[in-house]
C-alpha cells in the first residue's frame, strides 16, 4: 500500500485511512429524481465507495465514470458506489444517463463536503469556484476509512487496480 500525501497544495490534513469520514446530507441524484440523503444512510447498508470528481462535463469525470462503470465493483461485492461533485442535480442526472451508470451522485455546489474532508481544489481561472480534488474513499459500515486516495496533482486519476484490491480485501 502506498502512502498518499498531498504535496502540491497547502492542505495536507485531509481525511485519511483510519479516520471516521465526516457525515453529510446532500441531494443524491439517480436517473429519475433526487432527494436528500445522508452518507450515514448509505453506510448503514454496508461499505461505500465515495468518489469525489471534478465538475460534470469535464473530461476527467467522463473518464473516471467510464472506468468505474466498466469495472462494476458493486457486482459480486457488498458495496455501494456513489459520486460527488459541485454540479447541480440537473447536470448529475444527465451524467448518470450519458455515462450509463447505475450509481447515484451527490450534489454539493457549495463545496462544503470537500472542505470537511480537507480536499478543496480552488480552480485557477474560474474565479469563485472551488471543487473537490479527485479523491476516492472506501468506507466501512461505520464510516471508518478503509482506503483513501486523494489527488496530489492536477489533473490526476485514481489507481483503479489499487482501489479494486482495497475493495476485495474488505
Amino acid at each position, binding site marked *: 500500500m502506498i502512502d498518499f500525501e498531498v504535496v502540491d497544495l497547502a492542505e495536507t490534513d485531509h481525511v485519511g485511512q483510519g479516520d471516521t469520514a465526516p457525515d453529510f446530507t446532500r*441531494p443524491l441524484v439517480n436517473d*429519475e*429524481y433526487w*432527494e*436528500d440523503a*445522508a452518507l450515514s444512510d448509505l453506510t448503514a447498508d454496508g461499505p461505500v465507495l465515495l468518489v469525489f470528481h471534478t465538475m460534470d462535463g469535464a473530461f476527467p469525470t467522463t473518464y473516471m465514470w467510464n472506468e468505474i462503470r466498466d469495472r462494476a465493483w458493486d457486482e459480486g461485492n457488498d458495496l455501494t458506489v456513489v459520486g460527488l461533485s459541485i454540479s447541480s*442535480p440537473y447536470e448529475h442526472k444527465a451524467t448518470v444517463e450519458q455515462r450509463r451508470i447505475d450509481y447515484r451522485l451527490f450534489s454539493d455546489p457549495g463545496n462544503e463536503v470537500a472542505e470537511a474532508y480537507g480536499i478543496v481544489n480552488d480552480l485557477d481561472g474560474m474565479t469563485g469556484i472551488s471543487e473537490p480534488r479527485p479523491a476516492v474513499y472506501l468506507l466501512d459500515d461505520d464510516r471508518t476509512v478503509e482506503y483513501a486516495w486523494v489527488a496530489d496533482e492536477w489533473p490526476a486519476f485514481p489507481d483503479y487496480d489499487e482501489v479494486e484490491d482495497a475493495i476485495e480485501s474488505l
Partner: protein
Amino acid sequence: MGDPDITFYRLQACPFCERVTRKLQEHGLDYRSRFVEPMHSERNVVKRVSGKRTVPAVVDENTGVTMSESANIVEYLDRTYGGEGSGASRTSSEQSPDGSERSRGERDGGGEAR
C-alpha cells in the same frame, strides 16, 4: 434515521408544488422530497407510483393514500391532518383544480400538466 411516511414528488419552482409544501409545513408533517425533471416525458417514477406523470404527487404510507393534483392534496392534508378544522367532505377531493391553473403549468413546463 427513520424514513418519513410522506413522500412528495415535486418539481423545482412549480407553484402547485409550493402550495403543497406550504400545507405540509403548516401541519408540521415530516416528508421526503423527491425532485423530478421539468420534462414531462421523463417523469416515469411519478407515473409508476401515481399512475400519471403530473406533479405534485404525494404518497402517504401512514394512510396508504397516493394522490395527485394540488387541490386534491391540499384538501386531503387538511382533512387528514388538519385537526379540529378537518370537516371537509370526501367528495371535494374529486373536484378538478380550475383550468387556468393547469394551463399555466403547461406553459411553464411544469405544474400539473398531463
